């Protein structure tokens, strides 16, 4: 690829938040017709750099040039007008509007000054179709899973993009199929000469799509590299800033030994009309059960029923052999079941509370208001998990809203781990988490299962599911279609086959 003049140049960017220097003297160049990966650990400053660029945050130091002209956007609206469109890390759409409106709001097709909803829906359906998404564009956004919402946000940005398209972890909850669709679109856009910024923690994706990589560490620039010239191993070392040994051990990560096969939870014919067809499932202590399926196949629905987040309208649940009626999350928690929702912003974080408060929340709720967790115990627990999960900044008094996306996810994981559950339901636990931390979490799951904890593991990353689970439950169209034991014979291909055909290979 020939060196062109950069369309975008950021020089000496600095940004300080109270107590944190998020960016310090960062340079970033973006050329037309390239896909530029922005890499770094959780909290390295990737999202902040993007928000500086689009004017969400005021800039403290440095300058930005677009097409050689100095610019300073007052906000995303101005950035959009200048041809810069962005998918921010957390899905930023309006839950109360329809899918089509979320894509076209601000740019609606109009007739006689009035919005033409019919035309808008048609255009939206076409656009979503090109991304391989087949949903009713007239449906309300809030009814869709995180993955679908993420696709909608991408569709919006792609449609707006004129010169620069910025995607901040767009693939964090997409499965392989959706990622492939997205990449097809990205390649098309690159052909058309768009400059694309791409943030992800999936190294494979970086190597598949990007031309150039900029690495940040602790708010500082490590360097800019051509993807072809930087090995995966070097990239990771540049990101974490030390010799790589941790990463290798993940690759060899063996799934835990099943020790105690007594059934902990048994679901018989449990289902909920419109959400998931009745299914039966047994989870043993010490067992990791992985759920596999495409986006919207009903994995989250299944998990929610087991936790009582939604009410089942058929079937029976037994915990320790005793039937239970799930009246709500409380019933599940009283039986030592924990559930990490995939939807960290709307169903997980209490944004204005501190890291400490967010972490002890579930434990405290379990104890009741009158028995506060003693402050010393709080501090110990929080310190332990801040350390174990490498939550940054490590100050437990930080307001959770101010944490980077990946660190927020770790906080939620910590919230459930300290309750010492017997069954841990993890819905996309590694969403937005960097390579190092992901390995830590996987190791944690293995070791907890080794100690007799049962885990229900949902992840868009099939490899991850395969690596960790003893049993894999395959879902399709909101029904369980197969349950397979994860022997050596089972691999990604055979599972994909099952998903596609609904028959065990």
């Amino acid at each position, binding site marked *: 690829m020939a060196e062109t003049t950069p369309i975008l140049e950021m020089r000496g960017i600095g940004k300080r938040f109270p107590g944190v220097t998020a960016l310090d003297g960062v340079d970033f160049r973006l050329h037309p017709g390239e896909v530029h990966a922005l890499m770094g650990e959780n909290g390295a400053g990737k999202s902040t750099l993007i928000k500086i660029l689009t004017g969400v945050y005021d800039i403290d130091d440095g300058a930005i040039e677009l097409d050689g002209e100095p610019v300073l956007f007052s906000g995303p609206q101005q950035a959009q007008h200048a041809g810069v469109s962005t998918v921010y890390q957390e899905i930023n759409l309006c839950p109360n509007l329809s899918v089509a409106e979320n894509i076209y709001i601000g740019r609606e097709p109009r007739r006689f000054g009035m*919005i033409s909803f019919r035309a808008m829906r048609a255009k939206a359906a076409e656009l979503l179709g090109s991304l391989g*998404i087949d949903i009713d564009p*007239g449906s309300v956004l809030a009814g869709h899973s995180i993955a679908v919402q993420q696709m909608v946000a991408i569709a919006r940005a792609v449609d707006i993009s004129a010169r620069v398209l910025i995607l901040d972890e767009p693939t964090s909850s997409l499965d392989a199929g959706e990622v492939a669709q997205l990449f097809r679109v990205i390649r098309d856009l690159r052909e058309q000469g768009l400059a694309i910024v791409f943030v992800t923690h999936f190294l494979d994706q970086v190597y598949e799509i990007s031309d150039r990589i900029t690495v940040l560490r602790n708010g500082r620039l490590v360097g800019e590299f051509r993807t072809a010239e930087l090995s995966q191993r070097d990239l990771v070392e540049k990101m974490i800033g030390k010799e790589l040994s941790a990463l290798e051990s993940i690759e060899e990560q063996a799934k835990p030994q099943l020790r105690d096969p007594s059934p902990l939870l048994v679901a018989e014919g449990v289902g909920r009309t419109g959400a998931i067809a009745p299914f039966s499932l047994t989870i043993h202590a010490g067992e990791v059960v992985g759920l596999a399926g495409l986006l919207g196949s009903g994995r989250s629905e299944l998990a929610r029923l087991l936790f009582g987040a939604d009410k089942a309208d058929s079937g029976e649940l037994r915990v320790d052999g005793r039937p239970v009626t799930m009246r709500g999350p409380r019933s599940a928690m009283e039986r030592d079941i924990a559930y990490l929702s995939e939807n960290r912003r709307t169903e997980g974080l209490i944004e204005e509370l501190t890291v400490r408060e967010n972490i002890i929340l579930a434990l405290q709720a379990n104890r009741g208001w009158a028995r506060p967790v003693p402050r010393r115990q709080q501090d110990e627990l929080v310190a332990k998990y801040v350390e174990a999960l490498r939550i940054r900044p490590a100050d437990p008094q930080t307001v959770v809203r101010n944490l980077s996306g990946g660190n927020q996810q770790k906080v939620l994981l910590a919230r459930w781990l300290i309750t010492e559950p017997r069954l841990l339901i993890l819905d996309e636990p590694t969403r937005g988490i960097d390579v190092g931390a992901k390995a830590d979490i996987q190791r944690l799951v293995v070791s907890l299962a080794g100690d007799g904890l049962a885990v229900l593991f949902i992840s868009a990353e099939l490899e991850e599911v395969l690596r960790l689970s003893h049993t894999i439950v395959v879902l399709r169209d909101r029904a369980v279609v197969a349950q397979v034991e994860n022997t050596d014979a089972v691999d990604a291909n055979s599972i994909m086959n099952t998903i596609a055909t609904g028959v065990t290979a």
Partner: protein
Amino acid sequence: MTSVLAPRRRAWTIRKYVPILGTLVLLVIMYGIGIVNYEGFYNTQILLNIFIDNSFLLVVAVGMTFVILTGGIDLSVGSVVALTTMVCATLLNDGWPAPAAMIAVLVMGALLGFLMGCVIHFFEIQPFIVTLAGMFLARGLCYVISTSSISIDAPFWKTTAQERIGVGTFTITPSVVIAGLVVVIAAVVLAWTRFGRTVYAIGGNANSAMLMGLGVGRTRIGVYTISGLCSAIGGLLLSFYMSSGDPLHAIGMELDAIAAVVIGGTLLTGGSGYVLGTVLGITVLGLIQTIITFQGNLSSWWTRIFIGGLLFVFVLLQRAVVRRTP
């Protein structure tokens, strides 16, 4: 490989009108109960009178609907209505021609709203405080103009006040027509214009709306301006109705307007609701008042308890009909 996302229920489109339909049905039932219990209640004019007597409130509530849809609140409306009547009366007494006086007060109302919107947006102060200060300010200005009422003798006001439009024995006032127009325009703006949809977007999630590149500031200032303008129109209608400016006019009207909007199914947290709902909300309040009047033998305190009771029964049934996730 393509995704196998099954297309799902299209029921959403109908479902979103369930709250409104439910409210409408309840309203009809309530009206029916009135007819059964009170002699003379069946007279259609009774229904029309509700709109005649509440046209100004309706307009004010429409403005409030915009504000509440963005998740804000406007406490200043009652005072702005009063101020409008006062300024209008004063100007007319000073010999201003009617059209000039009307335009002047409309501009004044919109300007007040605009200023409050600016303070809310630029200085990031909670709408509650800003509009409360606006409420004090407008009411204070009324007293500064005069502490007693000023009657309006302008012929245009006299004729408008007594003009009746109607077929046969059924009549409405020009004010009702104006209020109806405001409702239609507001409904169209909210449903079919970019501005209107942005209002909903802000109510859904203001931060997202900003990140989506929508003109959040402009829209937010816009809704307060609209609310101010609607208050001024409401003030004009009230001045037709009362033929006077009075610093004590419309005390507590903000609460009536908010109540009408919320009873109409709009969420106070923003993002969900319709102008049509607000019309129904006004009708509910008006019908309750009419029933009270027809009851005719309630002492003052029983009147209040009865109003509370009717309101309770209504919202309870509404809640049962429209079982929504909280």
